[in-house]
């Protein structure tokens, strides 16, 4: 079916703000300056003399229309199912937005006197306690700004611990074992901390290959293991205790990537599995909004042995008073100015309060149930690469469709036409043409059924009319973009001579 588009529709043709700019328009008013003016407040040679060339001049109405229009070109969780595997796109409560904006939080300066910031420190402390309980690990820093930074912090803790334990000999222990299915941030963070990466193979069931793990351990020099659990195929590493014991016996430590904690909260705790250090993504498991790619918050939690090395300051309680403790001489140092993304902490604690003990577990159960339901419903139409039951995300490959020339990317793009955000594609790398589907607990059965039906329809289309899928999406404002040319001749900023919205009629 083809829909005749009205090509000049204003909401579909909003240009760049720079293209809207008209000299003399203003969108603000400041109170009149109420101090006596000093003419030469700044030496002339330090003053800017370009009159902020190119910065737009627009009215408040222009700005509101501009952003409202372009916002409608985005898909969002509030619009529907957003089944990005490994990203945990769950409902972002408005209540949490409200609490983060309470004046006493939003308007508080991080260097305000401790005695006048007790509420903020209390909030951090309470969130720390809850996250320690949820993970079963006693040490914590909420300073890391995002998952990748929490992970880097975790790896640095391992390094600091080994340096402290082994002294000079620590330099011979620089191998970080990482499964081939891991997030790309894992090896990148390990490299930033001075580790060499060795890759562990997966078994045909998508699990860590224990024989290979032992072999790598026997080669010596193992500082640690970076493991996601459930792993990035959505499968729980059943041998987790043995994995941890093997690494510990080899003198190393176990870091767990907490990206998939949404499958475990209230059910099982990394600390009880033998994990030494973990990061969490408050923007995944604890539903702080992803915001189009940030901000996140990536707390790092660890065992008592690693706790002396956590970033400072630590937020501690002394009697009834909360305080910042800088006195940890073994600390790896700061990873971020101040105390972390506090605004995200307010939201996460609001999430925990709203769910409570029962609700947290209930969310985990439904997240896993929803994924298992999808996994089961699509296993005929799509190739399911592993026999194992999935946890909170279901994995498939394009094997059944690629024979017709339809690959994962095409299936993803066609899903857009059915009103869904695509799943995560081509990740993890261990499955060719991977499609990783994480519905989360925020989707009801009717929507799950609609998604399943769409996927089955797309499979049928792939078999009967592959071009329809290959050329998708058909319903969006713009089609697939030429990313290769964009990278070859990068245009990364507006300039006055830039081509405007459309070069074709």
């Amino acid at each position: 079916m083809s829909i005749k588009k009205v090509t000049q529709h204003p909401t579909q043709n909003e240009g760049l703000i720079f293209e809207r700019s008209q000299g003399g328009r203003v969108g603000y008013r400041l109170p009149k300056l109420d101090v006596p003016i000093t003419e030469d407040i700044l030496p002339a040679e330090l003053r800017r003399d370009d009159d902020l060339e190119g910065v737009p001049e627009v009215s408040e109405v222009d700005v509101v229309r501009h952003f409202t229009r372009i916002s409608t070109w985005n898909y969002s969780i509030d619009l529907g199912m957003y089944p990005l595997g490994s990203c945990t796109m769950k409902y972002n409560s408005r209540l949490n937005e409200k609490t983060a904006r309470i004046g006493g939080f939003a308007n508080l300066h991080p260097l305000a006197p401790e005695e006048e910031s007790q509420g903020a420190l209390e909030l951090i402390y309470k969130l720390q306690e809850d996250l320690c309980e949820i993970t079963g690990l006693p040490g914590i820093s909420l300073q890391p700004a995002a998952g990748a930074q929490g992970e880097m912090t975790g790896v640095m803790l391992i390094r600091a611990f080994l340096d402290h334990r082994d002294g000079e000999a620590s330099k011979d222990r620089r191998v970080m074992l990482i499964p081939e299915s891991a997030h790309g941030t894992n090896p990148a963070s390990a490299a930033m901390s001075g580790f060499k990466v060795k890759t562990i193979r997966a078994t045909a069931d998508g699990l860590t290959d224990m024989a290979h793990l032992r072999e790598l351990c026997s080669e010596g020099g193992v500082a640690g293991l970076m493991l996601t659990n459930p792993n990035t195929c959505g499968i729980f590493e059943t041998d987790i205790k043995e994995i941890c014991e093997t690494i510990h016996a080899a003198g190393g430590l176990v870091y767990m990537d907490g990206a998939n904690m949404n499958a475990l909260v209230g059910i099982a705790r990394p600390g009880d599995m033998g994990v030494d250090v973990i990061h969490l993504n408050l923007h995944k498991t604890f539903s702080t909004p992803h915001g189009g790619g940030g901000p996140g918050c990536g707390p790092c939690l660890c065992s008592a042995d690693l706790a002396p090395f956590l970033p400072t300051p630590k937020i501690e309680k002394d009697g009834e008073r909360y305080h910042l403790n800088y006195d940890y001489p073994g600390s790896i140092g700061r990873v971020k100015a101040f105390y972390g993304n506090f605004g995200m902490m307010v939201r996460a604690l609001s999430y925990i309060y709203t769910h409570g003990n029962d609700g947290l577990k209930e969310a985990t159960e439904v997240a896993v149930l929803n994924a298992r339901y999808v996994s089961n419903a699509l296993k005929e139409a799509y190739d399911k690469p592993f026999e194992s039951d999935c946890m909170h995300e279901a994995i498939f490959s394009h094997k059944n469709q690629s024979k017709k020339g339809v690959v994962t990317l095409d299936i993803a793009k066609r899903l857009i036409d059915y009103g869904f955000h695509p799943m995560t594609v081509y990740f993890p790398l261990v499955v060719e043409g991977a499609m990783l589907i994480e519905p989360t607990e925020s989707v009801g059965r009717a929507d799950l059924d609609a998604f399943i039906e769409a996927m089955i329809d797309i499979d049928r289309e792939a078999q009967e009319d592959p071009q329809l899928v290959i050329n998708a999406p058909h319903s969006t404002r713009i089609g697939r973009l030429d990313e290769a040319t964009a990278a070859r001749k990068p245009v990364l900023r507006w300039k006055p001579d830039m081509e405007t919205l459309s070069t074709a009629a």
Partner: protein
Amino acid sequence: MRYIPNSPEERADMLGLLGLSNAGELFRSIPNDVQLNRPLNVTDPMAENEVIAAMEAMAAKNTAATKPSFLGAGVYSHFSPTIVDHLIQRSEFFTSYTPYQPEISQGTLQYIFEFQTLVCQLTGMEVANASMYDGSTAMAEAYLMAQRVTRREKVIVAKSVHPEYREVATTYDQHGDSEIVEIDFDEATGRVVGLDALDDRTAALVVQSPNFFGCIEDLQSLADAAHAVGALFIVVVTEAISFGLLKPPGEFGADIVVGEGQSWGVPMSFGGPHLGLFATQDKFIRQMPGRLCGVAYDKNGNRGFVLTLSTREQHIRREKATSNICTNQGLIALAATIYMETMGKTGLQEVAEQNAQKAGYAKQQIAAVAGYSIPFSSPTFNEFVVRGPRPALEVLEKVRIENGIVGGLALSKYYGGHDNDILVCVTETMSKANIDAFVDAL
């Protein structure tokens, strides 16, 4: 649980379809000895009004949030137009993910492109990324980038750069063969000295301007000194409002400009989330960390935007990536973009001018108080150091308790031997009456 759509009946039905009799059976792959098998020791579920009450009770203890404050030091209180916070709360912005599917993410991609453009315009640089976590981590990444570009290991950083930024960069850079050398400031001018540390092993000279003491550095001579030994010149800016008035680092030949964009419409929020700025020259694009958004066309010639040059990044390059960074500060970059566009050319200039004028007035008034002086002679923007007759902590305590004013930062928190010095910041949010009350209280 009201956030979970499926009713208990629907769940039971779904479990039945999977051949399971209860939710516990979903977790059979988790060995029983690592299952928790008890309720979490966290609160019972709370109703909406109970959550709000609990949060408000904590917020109320942050008494500093409602007092007139002269704190700056990298985080600034500024006016933000109402529409900034309204627009970022549109579902389409705050509940979307990283724009990996450009066909349904053009809203996000377009504002990132506008953000990158505005950062270039304000810093005077050629290219800017989609943002970093904050100013401190942006600076740390700049060290690493300079080391990659020059293939040298030594970084020379001024002690007048924000102390917490320097701590973060040291943490990031502790595991290579890096050498970090800190150089002093002149006790009379407050500006950088000690450039004789520059040599042919130096990857970068890193300075902040206005520096931590509020002093505006002589960027031209510093740039020339760095370039004379083949080092990159990195300029840190923690007060983004200053771009509206001060000649930008790009005009002095900065190779990398990093900074903090919190001043552009973002609440202080006890230190985060804030906004890391990262800008450089075109020739260094492929060594940049972080996301970049660029123009692309579809087959009908329609203009759109995509994330591009991702072969630098961790999801492709893994351990050989330019950084482990995965996110940017999406929504915060949006707030900053809306702020800059709403204020526009004249607003950014006017707010900068007001900051300079108000701070200038406060500086004059305080200098006239008996026993007080301005120790550093360099020109300043909206922050400056005052030296008092008594220990700064004592003065600030008195002003806080007796006058209800948060009077600035005791420099001794970060700098030994400066016990009587207070770092004072005056933005457009402080009225003349606020300033006069503070001066009277000293």
